[in-house]
């Protein structure tokens, strides 16, 4: 009697295995798991050692359907966002959990859908740059602002120095005057 043999016994691949990313339909995951589970049965494999290796590979593949690396990439992107937000805006991030499935990380606050352009803390690059701009604007225009009340501007101060030197005659050294003029010229005042 000839038996119909539908099972071809295989050798499981040996490590290292190459990895590629692919997309899949999440709603199909229970069926993917069903298909992989069937193939993980020992009668598909030439011996116990190969069956154990194949079962582990296929189980791992099932894990990847349930924990796709896309989530890891999104998590990495979120970490970069939080790094930039902390550096630029000084936002403080807090968290609970240990990062395990039983005790996942819960990070607060949530990343906003749209960043608030007005938000920054005192200890931030955003605030430092803002302060620097206020100082520079005051220095150049003499307009007072929340940080500086001095109404003098640097152009006027240089002009006053030059006028004082020329009018007062206290400094008649042409070399000093020419250097001051060179400085003023270099500054574009």
């Amino acid at each position, binding site marked *: 009697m000839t038996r119909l043999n539908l099972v071809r016994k295989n050798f499981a691949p040996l490590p290292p295995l190459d990895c590629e990313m692919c997309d899949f339909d*999440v*709603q199909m*995951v*229970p*069926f993917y*798991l*069903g298909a992989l*589970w069937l193939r993980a049965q*020992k009668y598909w494999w030439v011996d*116990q050692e190969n069956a*154990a290796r194949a*079962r*582990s590979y296929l*189980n*791992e593949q*099932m*894990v990847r*359907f*349930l*924990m796709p690396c896309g989530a890891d990439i999104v998590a990495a992107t979120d970490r970069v966002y939080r790094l930039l937000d902390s550096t630029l805006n000084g936002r403080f991030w807090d968290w609970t959990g240990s990062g*395990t*499935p*039983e005790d*996942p990380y819960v990070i607060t606050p949530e990343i906003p859908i749209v960043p608030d352009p007005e938000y920054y803390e005192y200890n931030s690059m955003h605030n430092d740059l803002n302060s620097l701009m206020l100082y520079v604007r005051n220095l150049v225009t003499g307009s007072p602002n929340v940080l500086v009340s001095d109404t003098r501007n640097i152009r006027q101060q240089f002009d006053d120095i030059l006028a004082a030197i020329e009018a007062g005659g206290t400094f008649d050294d042409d070399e000093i005057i020419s250097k001051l003029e060179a400085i003023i010229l270099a500054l574009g005042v």
Partner: protein
Amino acid sequence: MQSPTVAIESYWRDVENRDAQLTLHVPFSHDLAAVRSAALAALDVVKGISDAVLVGYKLIWRATIDDPPEPSLGADLTQFLGLFYRSDDETTTEAIWIPAPVGAVFEDEGVYTGIRALATSPPIVAFLAASVQDILSTPEGEAFPQTYVVGGLRL
């Protein structure tokens, strides 16, 4: 009800490569090694009165639950929950397949709703707290992997 005996399901082969099965019984004992010794002794006796050769045997002990309750309305044995574990060196991934999982063990929001196990759900927490990985082994007799990874629905 617990069976008072352990069945010895033995397999025999003749010169034409045909197979036959013989089932014997020995008294139940909590000492599995003692049961196995008794089974082998019984099979040795059979060898003396049979020209066939023994090619394998299986020890079977059965217990049935007296008057089990009615299954709940949602009980569906076409569904399984896989709980995946990795070995500490992350070279081996094993799974425990639990039949007819309750709906409360699955995520209830997001794209994996009803598909992926919610590790913080009370039934999963209780299962993990029972430290099953400390008392189970793989089919190859290795210690069961220790790190729970994820769970999911199999259809």
